[in-house]
């Protein structure tokens, strides 16, 4: 019985094809507009003018830029001293029509990129809506008609600003992630471009996932897409985000921002599998405000990037609000994954669970940096944090830094963490059943991340497995 199971798994491991080309294929960058390297007030004005934005947005950008200039680079986390912000291209509009609703309208090379990444196929099979961003512009964006009829808004953020100015002004970088939040939120506020705007009307439950894919193609580029999700009372939505970039010698920067409003009784699931290249700085902000009896679920995979700093945050503002976080981080040679989760219990009877798994290989560094806060007036809150770290090599490094700040005595808080390696006995057990050392190791790693992977939509689960497998290649001997 046990053996049957194992045979199945072995086959599964073997049949996942390893296809680096899919991600690393580069197109010749062709821009119709770019601001060139570096950032000045003129760059900020140019981006705003290019998008024909209302005055308030320009002022907001300029204010953010002013704050950005005044604020030093944070030093409490990974080493950002090698990030040269003057070498980044902050805006580049590719030579393609924006917001196409049919793949045929895209230039052939860009279309092929997304085909290689499997996006049109996923759209046909499973998705309620799809958006794809290429460099600084959203090149394809389409919502299936049935959802549009129910009042669901699924737009490129640039378009949403024009079409739904009231909603936008109310929610964009106001209460959730204000432009003054931190250095890279300020930068984002100044140069944001593209991204996704989702509004689900009260009571509408979107049964198929909405997906966005963010692709950087050009070297030295920065991507600053903004995601704004508003689930009105009793609404439900499942949002999937993927991202990738081919590997270049120069540094890329990703400073996105995700703001989610979960209104009373609503439920939002946010899935993200990030696979930026190992020369990318991923300094990202994700935050949700959850009202009464609302639920936010985060599923977060961090695989790529040279340095990641990302701590999705749930603010449980209404009674009975709930946060569920699942995270996985994989750091191989030269990578530092500094990730974690923040949960702030502001109201009574709020609950949160945080599960994080990290794997460090070679000299990769994984850091779990968490914050759990229970406010004074939040009674009977429950929180559970669990983080497990797997270290594959002697040079690997793993840090766990959970901060817990409990100001109400009726809280029930539990935190657990473990760090370890793959046991020689485990390897021996599998190898004595005919697996090679590499296969055995892959299988143990797959088992370690299984609880997270099984929560992902199928194609992302496969993607994540593939990515991990790529990373695990050659880890033996």
């Amino acid at each position: 019985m046990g053996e049957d199971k194992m045979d199945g798994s072995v086959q599964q491991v073997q049949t996942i094809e390893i296809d680096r080309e899919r991600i690393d294929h580069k197109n010749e960058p062709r821009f119709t507009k770019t601001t060139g390297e570096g950032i000045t007030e003129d760059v900020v004005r140019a981006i705003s003018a290019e998008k024909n934005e209302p005055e308030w947005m320009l002022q907001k950008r300029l204010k953010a830029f002013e704050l950005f200039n005044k604020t030093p680079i944070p030093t409490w986390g990974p080493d950002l001293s090698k990030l040269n912000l003057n070498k980044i291209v902050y805006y580049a509009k590719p030579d393609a029509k924006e917001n196409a609703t049919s793949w045929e309208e895209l230039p052939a090379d860009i279309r092929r990129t997304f085909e290689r990444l499997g996006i049109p196929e996923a759209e046909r099979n499973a998705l309620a809506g799809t958006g794809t961003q290429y460099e600084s512009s959203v090149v394809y964006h389409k919502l299936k008609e049935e959802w549009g009829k129910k009042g669901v808004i699924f737009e490129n953020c640039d378009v949403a600003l024009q079409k739904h100015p009231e909603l936008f002004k109310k929610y964009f970088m106001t209460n959730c992630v204000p432009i003054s939040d931190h250095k890279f939120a300020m930068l984002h506020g100044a140069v944001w471009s593209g991204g996704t705007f989702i509004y689900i009307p009260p009571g509408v439950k979107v049964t198929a996932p909405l997906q966005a894919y963010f692709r950087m193609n050009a070297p030295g580029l920065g991507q600053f897409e903004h995601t704004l999700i508003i689930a009105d009372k009793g609404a439900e939505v499942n949002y999937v985000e993927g991202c990738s970039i081919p590997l270049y010698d120069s540094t890329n920067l990703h400073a996105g921002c995700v703001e989610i409003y979960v209104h009373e009784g609503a439920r939002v699931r946010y899935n993200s599998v990030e696979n930026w290249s190992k020369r990318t700085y991923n300094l990202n902000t994700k935050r949700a405000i959850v009202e009464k009896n609302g639920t936010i679920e985060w599923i977060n995979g961090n695989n790529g990037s040279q340095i990641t700093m990302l701590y999705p945050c749930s603010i449980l503002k209404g009674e009975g609000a709930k946060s569920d976080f699942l995270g996985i981080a994989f750091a191989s040679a030269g990578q530092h994954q500094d990730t974690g989760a923040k949960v702030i219990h502001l109201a009574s009877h709020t609950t949160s669970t945080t599960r994080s798994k990290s794997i460090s290989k070679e000299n990769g560094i994984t850091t779990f940096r968490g914050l759990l806060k229970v406010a004074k007036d939040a009674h009977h809150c429950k929180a559970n944090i669990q983080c497990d770290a797997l270290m594959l090599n002697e040079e690997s490094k793993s840090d766990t830094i959970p901060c817990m700040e409990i100001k109400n005595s009726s809280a029930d808080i539990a935190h657990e963490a473990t760090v370890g390696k793959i046991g020689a006995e485990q390897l021996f057990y599998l190898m004595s059943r005919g697996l090679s050392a590499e296969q055995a190791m892959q299988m143990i790693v797959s088992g370690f991340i299984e609880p997270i992977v099984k929560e992902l939509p199928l194609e992302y689960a496969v993607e994540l497995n593939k990515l991990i497998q790529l990373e695990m290649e050659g880890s033996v001997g």
Partner: protein
Amino acid sequence: MEPVWLQQERESARKAHAGLQWPNFRYGLTMRMDYSDLPPELVEACVSQQTTQQTTIECADESVIIMPLKEAIEKHSKLVEPYLFKIMAMPNKFAEFHRAFWSSGTFVYIPAQVELESPIVIRKSLAGSNINHTLIVADDASAATIIEIADGQQNGPLFVSNATEIIAKANSSIRFISTQNYPQNIFHFDYKNAEIDQDAQVHWHDCCLGSAFTHSTIHSLLNGIGSESTIKNMFLGSNQQRFDIGAQIVHGASHTHGNIETKGILMDSAKNMYRGLIRIERDAPNSKGYQKEDVLMLSPETEANSIPQLEIENNDVKCSHAATTTHVDKERLFYLMARGISETTARKLFVRGFIEPFIQQLGSPVTAFIEDHIEQRLV
């Protein structure tokens, strides 16, 4: 006249102290232990207005050298000089202050192969502001239990700084049991450090009961292969008491074991900050580290903060940690009260159940003392 090396030691500490900012005890991104009610003048006053703590020492074994630290510097300079202030974690504004201006203390030397049957008991009673230093050198294969009981009736506010250094040489074993029960108007800074050689062990048991504000760090450095350290500590806070408690074990050699277990009870408006750290360095394969912190919050006004941190640089290790925050919930109280037990007694039983495993490890006479103390404090 103090020897030149000690004068130089004090001078370098004075300079280091002057060059450092007052710490703000900020932890994580948002946590902070407030000690703004301690005016810097009260600390500085300590330089000129120290009163030696009344110290009595019980030690049954005559081969042990045990005497005031200043006397030991005169009589046993060779035993003191190589160790004094060599293992305190620097730079630190308050620790440098301590190193520069300490005025009294105790020196304990346990010769090689000597195993003490009964514990050494050091009783210290506050008589005013004081900086007190304890240096313990355990030579090869020696073994001892040292109990330190600190209390005092002095009216504050006062600044008091205590530090303990334990040098545990190969194969030695030291158990250091300490209780601190100062009045609740004392600002107490406490640094406990141990450096532990091959196959040696240092076990700390620390009970923080008194003072208005306590900033305490217990730090064990596992320097020798096969060395071991446990830090088991508790704090009991009522009224406005604040405890900023650190427990750190650094694994610097292979096959080392570390274990941190902290229990805290908070009543009234008491607050705590727990900073736990297990650090396993690259050169420490086959090590095991464990860390656990439990806080029982008995009143709605209490606040419990914690950062149980792990830093692991070697993959051939077993390491885990856990932290919980609980309260006395209504069902459990109801269960006991339904059996005819008054609410007060039920609460006390609950607290006893929480803290008992810790207390039992202390051994006499400390176990009885802590039991009585808790009984009196819980109303």
